């Protein structure tokens, strides 16, 4: 119900919303949870396993019960905490994990079967018959489990990632964080102050606490205003720091306010990577429940949360409230309720020595032993020295003490220490390098303690960074001592909840201990305690205490499980922002792209590049028709193909020849200027890394080419060889891949075509096979290489990339006039297979120079990368699979890449495996299929008939082993 007091809501701005289809209203400043409480909605969800009805339990991101789905259609988002969801006009929320409705949930039956569904029950059953697991048991379990449902539609919202840099990151804008930011900001540090709430102030917004003689929230506002005025301080509200990572890097999730998120182009959430020199964790503390029978009833909630609802949002979840605790916070809660005019039916303090001046029915040294009321709290039973008292109440506020929010200090494997005085874990200084803790998350629970702690932490940071602190007065505030008498679980019958979300009770933890899952990690994994969406924020310490008790150990000896990032769940869409659709990797386009698209070529991914598959012409119905025609063009007239994607590396310097000799298996120091040579490059482990032609442009100047796929890897490798192995060499190299647009012009008429565009025509003498040199292409300085990947008389002509589009258009046009045209990747592939030229289909990382018949290219006269390891016995010899050609000889004429090879007549099983096919294609030149493959001892088996089996494509063919060069083995066409 809404209370008649101001609170931090704006009553002039009513907002309507729906929950499970019913319309309600709240005010600006409400969360969904406070608005539901104001509307007297008690049951907001169902628990994970027993499907027990559950109500709002906390007022923060640690909420275990009030998880709802908000939004509709593709925008629907499951598992949102009602406690941190800002209310906005028209918000549509639905409850989860119930069927058919929140009130009548069929699987609530599970609650009746609870005796059979204890910790780990599923490890002991569902095993017979084995086949039923996938068919029956598992589908049922999967449907029953889970919480909310995804919409089923692809994400349609924008998410964002961003970077920030600062000197000091202050995490939490409560009294400690504000004080720290103030001192650091005044001293001139670049400060980021982040808080997950929509406003700064932290608990000051939830308590009736005064700072410097005025309401704490007012003080927070004043400080915030001063911080906002500083150019060096950035306040990030709605921002949860989710993780501490190495080197002063923090992750943070920013939720945009509903009205901003609704704008076009606006992200819903932004994931920040914050790099900072220092950090101050001022994240406060989380209150912990007490385990007693049926403590999960709707209406039982945390006392600190109740104060927040009453003081900040002016709502009360009950008309007749009871309060149960073991610290003075119980009294503070009762006092706040009384001040707000809410009836307090009883105040129960577990500490026997406690007393009170409050005008309430008071129990000292008593404990709540049961909560009654199936659909919501109706009464509680209190055990006193004299017996059991039953008190009618519709809301119980409980407080078992506070756990410092030290999660981030554990993100780098730091383990906290047990503090008997606080009955809580506290972090160890230095657990995260560069991070200090301050305030309640350090165990200083008074307001004074927080303010002083924040100031002290800021001063320590300033000193550390060599900055002078400006005078900053410490405001006056309460400094009440924290007196706690630990109370984890009230003894008694029935189920007492520890982990509300995953339905883990005291009994489950005890059973785990009985079955020797007594390591805290085993207990967690066996019972699933701490593995729910709240990640044990509400349950870890209590469960640990129960386990310690059950195993007869102390809490410190029992140890803790660790907290891991993220502190609050982060959408995949935020961490993966920008990658949806094409954004996953940059797209690289060649200069010929536009014309290729205009010509209708399908553009195919080649690494990050796009290359044309083929250029369909009128009347061509299949890719094969286009491909066959393009192959024919190259063999009979002239074809043009963009080869700019191949890596091109300019190598210069007096030691360039020696460097290339070290890099390649063969010699480049002996290459004549104006000539190009094929080179083979090994990895240091003796396997082939890459191949390509290298041209010598000058005595100390070479131009290397790499395959498209390996361009980046080769460049990095060269930097390694130079900087790490041979820094004494005077050589430098730089990628010129992007500088030049380069086109293959191939076919008997290639020279005719070229001479039409070169300012000085070439002939066989001026430009023999494997010649290279500078040329002038219609007035533009270019380069010409007489190299061939098709086996035809061919050239590659290069011009600065700005002219690429223009030159490609011209070449394609002119080729057309000569009976040729553009050709794509498919034709390129057929042409090279016909010639037995290899690509990464063959040099797939496991092949050696021996395997591809190039062992003689490993020069005996010099060292090279990979030479020593290539000499290992396993890298050559008759046991290796060697490159061969294959042609079909039986009734089945098709050969397929990926098929395996067997002796004729041998069964197609692993033990008989003789090799496999790497590349296969129909050769229009030869009129039949051909394939390249690797065959055990293959070079000695030319002429042999073998069996090809492609199980998964259901193709089997007889074929003959032949030389891998199918066409023009003498190479006369390329040289002529």
């Amino acid at each position, binding site marked *: 119900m809404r209370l008649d007091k101001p609170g931090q809501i704006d009553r002039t701005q009513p907002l309507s919303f729906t929950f499970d289809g019913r319309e309600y209203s709240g005010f600006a400043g409400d969360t969904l949870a406070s608005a539901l409480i104001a509307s007297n909605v008690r049951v907001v969800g169902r628990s994970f396993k027993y499907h027990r009805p559950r109500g709002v339990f906390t007022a923060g991101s640690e909420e275990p019960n009030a998880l709802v789905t908000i939004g509709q259609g593709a925008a629907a988002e499951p598992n949102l905490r009602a406690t941190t969801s800002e209310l906005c006009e028209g918000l549509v929320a639905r409850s989860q994990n119930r069927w058919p409705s929140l009130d009548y949930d069929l699987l609530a039956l599970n609650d009746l079967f609870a005796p059979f569904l204890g910790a780990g029950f599923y490890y002991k059953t569902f095993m017979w018959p084995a086949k039923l697991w996938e068919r029956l048991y598992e589908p049922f379990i999967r449907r029953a489990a889970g919480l909310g449902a995804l919409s089923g539609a692809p994400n349609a919202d924008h998410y964002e990632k961003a970077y920030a840099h600062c000197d000091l990151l202050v995490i939490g804008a409560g009294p400690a964080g504000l004080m720290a930011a103030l001192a650091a900001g005044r001293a001139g540090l670049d400060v980021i102050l982040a808080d997950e709430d929509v406003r700064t102030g932290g608990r000051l917004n939830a308590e009736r606490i005064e700072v410097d003689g005025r309401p704490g929230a007012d003080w927070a506002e004043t400080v915030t205003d001063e911080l906002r005025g500083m150019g060096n301080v950035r306040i990030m509200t709605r921002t949860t720091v989710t993780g501490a990572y190495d080197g002063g890097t923090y992750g943070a999730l920013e939720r945009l306010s509903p009205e901003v998120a609704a704008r076009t182009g606006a992200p819903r959430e932004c994931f920040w990577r914050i790099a900072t020199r220092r950090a101050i964790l001022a994240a406060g503390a989380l209150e912990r429940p007490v385990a007693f029978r049926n403590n999960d009833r709707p209406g039982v909630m945390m006392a600190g949360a109740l104060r927040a609802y009453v003081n900040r949002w002016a709502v009360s979840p009950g008309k007749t409230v009871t309060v149960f605790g073991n610290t003075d916070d119980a009294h503070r809660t009762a006092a706040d309720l009384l001040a707000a005019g809410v009836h307090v039916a009883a105040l129960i303090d577990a500490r026997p020595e406690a007393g009170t001046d409050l005008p309430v029915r008071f129990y000292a040294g008593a404990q709540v032993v049961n909560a009654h009321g199936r659909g919501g709290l109706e009464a509680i039973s209190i055990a006193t020295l004299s017996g059991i008292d039953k008190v009618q109440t519709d809301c119980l506020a409980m407080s078992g003490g506070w756990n410092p929010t030290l999660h981030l200090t554990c993100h780098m494997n730091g383990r906290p220490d047990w503090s008997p005085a606080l009955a809580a874990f506290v972090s160890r200084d230095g657990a995260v390098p560069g991070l200090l803790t301050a305030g309640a998350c350090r165990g200083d629970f008074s307001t004074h303690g927080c303010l002083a702690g924040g100031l002290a932490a800021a001063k320590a940071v300033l000193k550390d960074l060599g900055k002078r602190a400006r005078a900053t007065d410490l405001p006056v505030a309460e400094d009440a001592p924290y007196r706690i008498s630990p109370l984890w679980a009230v003894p008694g019958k029935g189920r007492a909840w520890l982990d509300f979300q995953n339905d883990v009770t005291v009994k489950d933890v005890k059973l785990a201990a009985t079955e020797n899952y007594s390591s805290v990690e085993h207990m967690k994994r066996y019972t699933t305690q701490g593995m729910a969406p709240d990640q044990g924020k509400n349950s870890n310490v209590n469960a640990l205490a129960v386990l310690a008790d059950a195993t007869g150990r102390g809490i410190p000896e029992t140890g803790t499980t660790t907290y891991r990032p993220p502190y609050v769940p982060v959408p995949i869409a935020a961490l993966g922002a920008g990658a949806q659709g094409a954004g996953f990797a940059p797209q690289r386009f060649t200069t010929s792209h536009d014309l290729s698209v205009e010509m209708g070529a399908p553009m195919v991914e080649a690494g990050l590049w796009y290359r044309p598959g083929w250029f369909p012409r009128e009347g061509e119905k299949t890719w094969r028709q286009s491909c066959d025609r393009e192959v024919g063009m190259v063999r009979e007239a002239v074809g043009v193909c963009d080869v700019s994607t191949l890596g091109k590396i300019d190598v210069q310097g007096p030691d360039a020849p020696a460097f290339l000799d070290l890099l390649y298996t063969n010699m480049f120091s002996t290459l004549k200027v104006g000539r190009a040579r094929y080179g083979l490059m090994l990895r240091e482990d003796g396997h082939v890394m890459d191949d390509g032609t290298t041209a010598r442009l000058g005595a100390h100047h070479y131009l290397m080419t790499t395959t498209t796929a390996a361009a980046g890897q080769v460049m990095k490798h060269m*930097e390694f060889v130079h900087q790490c192995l041979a820094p004494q060499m005077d050589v430098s190299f730089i990628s010129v891949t992007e500088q030049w647009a380069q086109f293959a012009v191939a076919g008997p008429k290639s020279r005719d075509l070229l001479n039409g565009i070169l300012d000085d025509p070439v002939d066989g003498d001026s430009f023999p096979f494997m010649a290279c040199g500078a040329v002038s292409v219609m007035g533009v300085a270019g380069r010409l290489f007489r190299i061939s990947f098709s086996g035809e008389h061919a050239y590659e002509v290069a011009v600065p990339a700005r002219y690429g589009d223009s030159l490609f258009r011209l070449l394609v046009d002119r080729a057309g006039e000569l009976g040729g045209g553009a050709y794509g990747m498919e034709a390129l592939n057929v042409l090279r297979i016909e010639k037995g030229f290899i690509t990464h289909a063959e040099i797939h990382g496991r092949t050696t120079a021996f395997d591809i018949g190039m062992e003689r290219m490993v020069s005996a006269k010099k060292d090279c990368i990979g030479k*020593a*390891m290539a000499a290992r016995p396993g890298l050559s010899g008759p046991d290796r699979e060697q490159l061969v050609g294959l042609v079909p000889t039986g009734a089945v004429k098709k050969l397929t890449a990926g098929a395996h090879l067997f002796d004729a007549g041998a069964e197609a099983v692993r033990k008989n495996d003789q090799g496999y096919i790497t590349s296969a294609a129909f050769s229009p030149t030869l009129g039949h299929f051909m394939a390249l493959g690797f065959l055990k001892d293959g070079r000695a088996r030319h002429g042999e008939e073998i069996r090809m089996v492609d199980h998964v494509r259901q193709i089997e063919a007889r074929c003959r082993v032949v030389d891998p060069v199918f066409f023009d083995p003498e190479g006369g066409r390329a040289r002529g």
Partner: protein
Amino acid sequence: MRIPCPICGSRDIREFDYMGHAQALDRPDPGAGAQAWDDYLHNRDNPAGPTRDLWFHGMGCGAWLVVERDTVSHEVTGATLARDVKGGAA
């Protein structure tokens, strides 16, 4: 994690590629024998604690670095240009 590139200053590790232990700088002579090459290419001390390893600032200046780092704490205590390390050893 951030790496103090001697050339570029402190940078996010996303700009770097990792290769492995800095023993990769100590390439054996071609004829050093199978064991020496096996030790060079395959076998590792694999320390749990301080180590020196090779990183390539591929998204930055293109330098190979020898980074002093702890494999347990991930603390990075220094970085040197590999070519300087190599030069010093020569």
